[in-house]
């Protein structure tokens, strides 16, 4: 065991040391700091802070031999406030999670015809509907002329859980470990760019095997989940100023004794008159099922057939005041974005959230005892982005939500606030500096 640890430590130090002799190199530092207020929970609210700092490095010996590292630390914290029985607001304290980030530590290259990447790397599907997370593995790609074919295999159990954000079962949410749940992932992607002037096509198949141990399963009350995803995507532009995307995912799997059949579709259409304006609509709809599954992630399911769509990692989160993962949700968004100058832009977005089945969604504001109904929330979001310098920028967000019956708080907040005015707001500020 000591030898293995020593070998791993040597590798970690050796790779950067070797990279210093790389013929060409580039590196940089990224910092990010954000505040959002209020993050509303069922019985309290908080000022949420998110911060991260990291460094990246690229070294290149030749086109066929390169390496990259991307590592840092992240901080998720919250200044929490509560309301007591006298309707007095009190400060409950500051809680935080500090976690390491290691998204890239790999070697890669290509010969024009073939390409490879081996080591810690980000794996993502073409439409961002299934996975966007690091794993340790290999990716191999081949240029077939008009199309590209790539395939990969990797392991998730050595990635850091809080930064990777795998989010499938109760073990993922309840796991008391620095590392992610052990899983093996294989994928194949076929891309056909420029099938016609207005159509790009891709097909993506991902399979996942869950190796969660018996003790973890018992501790968190769930089963192993072995899903397969099939994604088809078409996108392109029409008449120059119209762009579209259509993407569909089918999810099939086995969860203990239950079978899982689910899916998700996304349709997006934008009109871009000139370079400074964009008017668009985006519709996302996914399958869902009832409370016999327990919660949003897979726990002790009582049904033999489950239908809620669950991506492998946190992707496609929609909503700012209340964030929703895609399962069991239909969202319809209309937005207008304008970039009057190169240094700043703004966007106005209206999103309607509907629950497809009277069952769980990702927000803790919707519980089994919450009201029933399809309408979840109507959000209006104003965002402003300012980047006065190449290495410095910040954005400001202000969102307002009109909440439907399924969204509830605890008795005091519900009685004195939500029953009278079923509205929530959220103000956020993000600052980034890269150098």
């Amino acid at each position, binding site marked *: 065991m000591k030898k293995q640890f020593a070998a791993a430590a040597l590798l970690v130090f050796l790779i950067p040391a070797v990279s210093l002799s790389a*013929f*060409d*190199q*580039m*590196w*940089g530092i990224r910092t990010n700091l954000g505040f959002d207020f209020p993050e509303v929970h069922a019985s309290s609210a908080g000022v949420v802070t998110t911060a991260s700092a990291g460094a990246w490095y*690229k070294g*290149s010996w030749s086109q066929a031999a390169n390496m990259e590292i991307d590592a840092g630390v992240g901080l998720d914290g919250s200044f929490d406030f509560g309301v007591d029985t006298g309707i007095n607001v009190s400060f409950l304290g500051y809680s935080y999670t500090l976690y390491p980030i290691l998204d890239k530590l790999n070697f890669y290259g290509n010969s024009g015809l073939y390409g490879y990447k081996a080591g810690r790397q980000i794996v993502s599907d073409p439409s961002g509907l299934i996975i966007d997370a690091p794993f340790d593995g290999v990716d191999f790609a081949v240029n077939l002329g008009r199309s590209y074919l790539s395939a990969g295999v990797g392991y998730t159990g050595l990635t850091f859980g809080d930064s990777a954000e795998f989010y499938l079962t109760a073990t993922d949410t309840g796991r008391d470990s620095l590392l992610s749940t052990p899983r093996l992932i294989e994928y194949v992607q076929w891309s056909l760019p420029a099938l016609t002037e207005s159509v790009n096509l891709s097909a993506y198949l991902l399979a996942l095997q869950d190796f969660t141990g018996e003790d973890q399963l018992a501790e968190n009350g769930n089963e192993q989940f072995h899903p397969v995803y099939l994604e088809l995507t078409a996108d392109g532009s029409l008449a120059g100023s119209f762009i579209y995307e259509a993407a569909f995912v089918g999810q099939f799997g086995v969860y203990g004794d239950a079978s899982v059949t689910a899916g998700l579709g996304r349709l997006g259409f934008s009109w871009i008159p000139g370079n400074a304006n964009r008017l668009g609509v985006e519709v996302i709809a996914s399958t869902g099922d009832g409370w016999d599954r327990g919660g949003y992630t897979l726990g002790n399911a009582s049904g033999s057939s489950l239908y809620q769509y669950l991506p492998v990692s946190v992707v496609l989160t929609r909503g700012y005041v209340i964030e929703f993962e895609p399962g069991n949700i239909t969202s319809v968004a209309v937005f207008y974005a304008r970039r009057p100058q190169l240094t700043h832009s703004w966007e106005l977005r209206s999103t309607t959230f509907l629950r497809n089945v009277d069952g769980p969604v990702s927000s803790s504001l919707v519980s089994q005892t919450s009201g029933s109904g399809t309408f979840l929330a109507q959000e209006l979001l104003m965002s402003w982005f300012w980047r006065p*310098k*190449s*290495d*410095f920028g910040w954005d400001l967000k202000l969102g307002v939500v009109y909440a439907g019956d399924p969204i509830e708080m605890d008795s005091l907040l519900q009685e004195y606030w939500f029953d009278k005015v079923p509205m929530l707001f959220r103000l956020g500020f993000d600052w980034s*500096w890269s*150098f």
Partner: protein
Amino acid sequence: MNRVIVLFFGYYVGRKGNIMRKVVFAAIFVIISTALWGQSNDLLDRFLEVEEADVATSLLLIAQASGELPLEAVPQDGFFWGAEQNFGKYLKNLTPEDPISLGLFYLALFKAFDIKGGLMYNALGTPRYAAMEAGYLGYVEPSRLYYTRAMAPYEVLTGITYVTDALEGGTL
């Protein structure tokens, strides 16, 4: 005429990835628009024939494009000019024939044309920050953004064209 060709060349090289096309268009560009930097066809022909752009000729082209050196200047003049600038300390360990790095080239180019950048570039002005500025402005493909790498001659011409074109209000 030169203006039209510069715009076309800048657009074409910036949007397409084929290196051979870049070389062909760079050659056409040089033949027709030598008056742009007032340099002789012979010098530019020799410059384009080598695989890696040398420090002296690259700095000469920058200095002539910015009006710092006369048309009859030679590459050695470009090297001496560079050594006297505020980025001259990065030339101390170089000879005029050494290949110019991406970072040093864009540092010299941005300094010569007094182009401001990010907070750290303005404060420290190192070759790495200059390369990052070039990447941010879209002058260098992300996959080839290494501040230490040697530049091809057509990349030097393209870089100067980007900057002179931007100063004239063109679209990159």
